[in-house]
């Protein structure tokens, strides 16, 4: 008996007796001899709770977390402060332990949360329809591709190089399933080349993929970039940083049909990449083609307001092979964290946060660009992330900074660096970065034969 099971020896005896067999073995009679394991699994023996905790503490201690260094890493996930009320609510058994709400009468909490979440995401993206969450960012981009295929039956995707590499690769992986062709459009001066994009789009184009701000942090002119796709009858998809949408013109106002993205910046932990949630919003036209769950408002037999899962063509339903998606378990708890976080920020807080980020980022960008051997990879407007070009091997520079407890950002190729900010990086932190990065670049640039710290 483990600490999680309760069948005592006397329980077992009574239970076998009621079943009418004389051993637990007998219950597995259907399993052919040939496929039985016939030995114990080759795994370590079980351990006490405190021993398991100690082992996991030791492992976790071998990671350099955002607590252990001043980190400017971004590239899709950002180290925003998660307010304590998010944890305390999300950890309640009432939200943590139920299954997907198949019985709405006893799941109104979770269902109303979905409805509130959908409303908030719809506000953020400026699009009327939101689902209740998909897995995460890049697979949301891929899901948008599949929805476009269902929508217009075409098999050609035009993708800006400004879309996160993980998203582009995920799109390719899944598009391979239905054999779609993928055309990539390069960036010009850090932003999507509008002319080249228009060039690439034709009447076979199923969808156009953009990102706002793009992978290099540049704010794209979505209105301009959406136009050719719409004219060609393609679905215009844009992956967005939800925090940036606090101050940027929402995609729904720019001619974008489908806005998706990584929800982690909205009150979710870094967790080394997951679990977080992906958001998926679209225009009315896509209402019945959306992947994943959607909660809808209705009334009960007494006329009381209530919420249910609606527009489902999934799982235990007929015509299952015609489902618009196979997604079942999604990321409800992470989406809950998202809507709590958005309520915490509130109407004005979201703007204040965006403004603070834009200003600190402007300060950081100017300060760093002023360092010898450091220049801007592009001069496009940015919100909270920007790309630099170093006159030194970035890998070595990063190692030098790490040795001083600073993570300067994400290396791009041989000499690029993607620097991201959150409200947790103060001016003092930025100045610290400037100091450390400046010395690191200087050292690597002049190629002084100093040992690169491992």
């Amino acid at each position, binding site marked *: 008996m483990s600490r999680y*099971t309760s069948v005592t020896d006397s329980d077992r005896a009574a239970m076998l007796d*009621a079943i009418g067999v004389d051993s*637990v073995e007998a219950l597995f009679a259907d399993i052919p001899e040939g496929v*039985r*394991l016939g030995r114990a*699994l080759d795994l*370590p*023996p*079980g*351990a006490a709770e405190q021993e398991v905790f100690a082992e*996991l503490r030791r*492992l*976790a201690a071998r*990671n350099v*977390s*955002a607590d252990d260094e001043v980190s400017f890493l971004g590239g899709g996930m950002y180290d925003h402060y998660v307010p304590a*009320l998010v944890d305390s609510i999300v950890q309640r*058994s009432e*939200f943590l*332990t*139920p*299954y997907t709400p198949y019985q*709405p009468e006893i*799941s*109104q909490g*979770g269902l*109303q*949360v979905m409805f*509130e979440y959908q*409303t*908030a995401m719809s506000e953020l993206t400026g699009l009327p329809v939101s689902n209740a*969450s998909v897995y995460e960012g*890049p697979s949301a981009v891929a899901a948008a591709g599949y929805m476009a295929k269902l929508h217009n039956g075409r098999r050609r995707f035009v993708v800006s190089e400004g879309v996160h590499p993980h998203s582009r690769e*995920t799109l390719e*992986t899944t598009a391979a*399933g239905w054999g779609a062709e993928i055309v990539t459009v390069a960036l010009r001066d850090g932003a999507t080349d509008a002319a080249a994009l228009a060039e690439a789009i034709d009447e076979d184009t199923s969808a156009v993929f953009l990102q706002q701000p793009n992978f290099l942090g540049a704010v794209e002119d979505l209105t301009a970039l959406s136009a050719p796709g719409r004219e060609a009858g393609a679905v215009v998809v844009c992956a967005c940083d939800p925090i940036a949408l*606090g*101050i940027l013109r929402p995609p729904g106002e720019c001619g974008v049909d489908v806005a998706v993205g990584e929800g982690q910046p909205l009150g979710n932990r870094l*967790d080394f990449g*997951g679990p977080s949630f992906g958001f998926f919003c679209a225009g009315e036209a896509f209402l019945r083609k959306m992947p994943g769950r959607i909660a*809808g*408002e209705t009334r*009960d037999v007494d006329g009381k*307001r209530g919420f249910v899962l609606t*527009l489902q063509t999934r799982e*235990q339903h007929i015509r299952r092979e015609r489902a618009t998606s196979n997604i079942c*378990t*999604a*990321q*409800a708890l992470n989406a809950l964290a998202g809507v*709590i976080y958005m309520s915490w920020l*509130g109407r*004005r807080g*979201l*703007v*204040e*946060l965006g403004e603070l980020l834009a200003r*600190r980022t402007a300060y950081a960008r100017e300060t760093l660009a002023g360092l010898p051997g450091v220049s801007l990879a592009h001069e496009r407007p940015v919100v909270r992330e920007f790309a630099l070009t170093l006159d030194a091997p970035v890998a070595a520079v990063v190692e030098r900074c790490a040795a001083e407890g600073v993570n300067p950002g994400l290396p791009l190729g041989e000499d690029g660096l993607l620097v991201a900010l959150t409200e947790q990086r*103060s001016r003092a932190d*930025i100045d610290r970065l400037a100091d450390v990065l400046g010395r690191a670049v200087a050292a690597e640039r002049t190629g002084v034969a100093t040992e690169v710290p491992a």
Partner: protein
Amino acid sequence: MSDPRTIFEVSQEGRRAFTSPETDVPERPLEELIPAALLRDEPARLPEVAEPEIVRHYVRLSNRNFHLDEGFYPLGSCTMKHNPKLHERVAALPGNSRLHPLQDPKRAQGALELMWRLQGSLAEIAGLPHVSLQPSAGSHGELAGVLLTRAYHEDRGERRHKVLTPDTAHGTNPATVTMAGYDLVKLASNQEGGIDLDDLRAKADEDVACLMLTNPNTLGLFDPNIEEIARIVHDVGATLYYDGANLNAIVGVCRPGDMGFDIVHFNLHKTFTQPHGGGGPGAGPIAVSDRIEPYLPRPQVVRRAPQNGGEPTFDLDHDRPKSIGRLRGFQGNYGVFVRSYAYIRSLGAEGLREMSETAVLNANYLLARLREKGVAEYLPVAYDRLCMHEFVLSGAPMKRDLKIKTLDLAKRLLDHGVHPPTVYFPLLVDEALLIEPTETETKETLDSFADTVAEVLREAREDPTIAQTAPHTTPVRRLDEAAAAKRPVIRQPL
């Protein structure tokens, strides 16, 4: 309880929970930094509420959920077992929860080692040597599996367009088949609830890429012909895919790899107790055989041999030319891996086997107990055999004789404070009830569930309308789902 307001209805202009850190840099007007044309005209209308009311709102909402820590949750196919509290503690350790996914592997050795160890444990449990942790849930694992099958065949220059699934399959299987660009071919079940071998032989041809199977299947029955099935599938060069949703029945007893499966997905949020969170998160790692390995998603967590006698190191291997590529961003749902790893370490080899044995014992006991209570007369078991970790009853006689449908029974159970079983699934059983008690429930709980079902039937004999109009004691009663779908209101008008 009065109709609850939404957080948007609680909102009052001017209230706030957020205090901004001070602006410690020049306060330049936003338009100086970003062209006005690219900026919002109006703030998004998020709620305006102070902390105390945000907390009360969501705490009150939470109390409108039934949950596993409150009572019995025998939702078939979902493995609603206890979620150990330790797992939340270890997942929250800053070294885990505050670790950036793009941290240099050199500085994420603990996380990579944990993933590597989890891969090893899952491989041993599946009986298949190679594991990718990337898929985000079961269906995502299914998609990975079918895409791997495609890559495998294409690499051999084969073009196949069919995928077989039994009529007992979970809905995600056919949906996956379509998403992956294959044609679905359904297989019939035999008298014993297993695969009809003749039908399989008839349909298994060179166009078949894969057979997707759950074993034990969604009837809770282990297919004794599994070896023959594998032979047939492999003889036509197709792959055999194992839907791991029902793995909780057989851990340490037998292994999909030993049954002949090529690809397996795990639902860490079922067998390995990641809390369901009301619809996720989960994780759907896959284990595969040697011939499938070259195509596994990128990147893979690998262990590098110790350099100059030091410790071995762990890394992310992106250099996999034949890989199907990424299925998502970063390295998968790491927080889920931490919980499942802690679970495997807590139970160990012996505990894991005891877990499955107890799950099967509890299911068979509950079935026997229901029989004892005379429930079988109205709710006969669909296949009268020993079951594995779950079993299916048919509500057809109940509907005929007592005039209450399976749905009515389910709704009436809500009034008794238990979560109903899965209903109307699997599809091939009329008025189906799929019951999975799991191993973490006590005999007393199973007994009282049997008593409750018997009581509902007794009550229905006297007055079927009580169940027909149930639930009566829940925060809301039966909801108009048709209206919700006909005139969808899926966001709040502001």
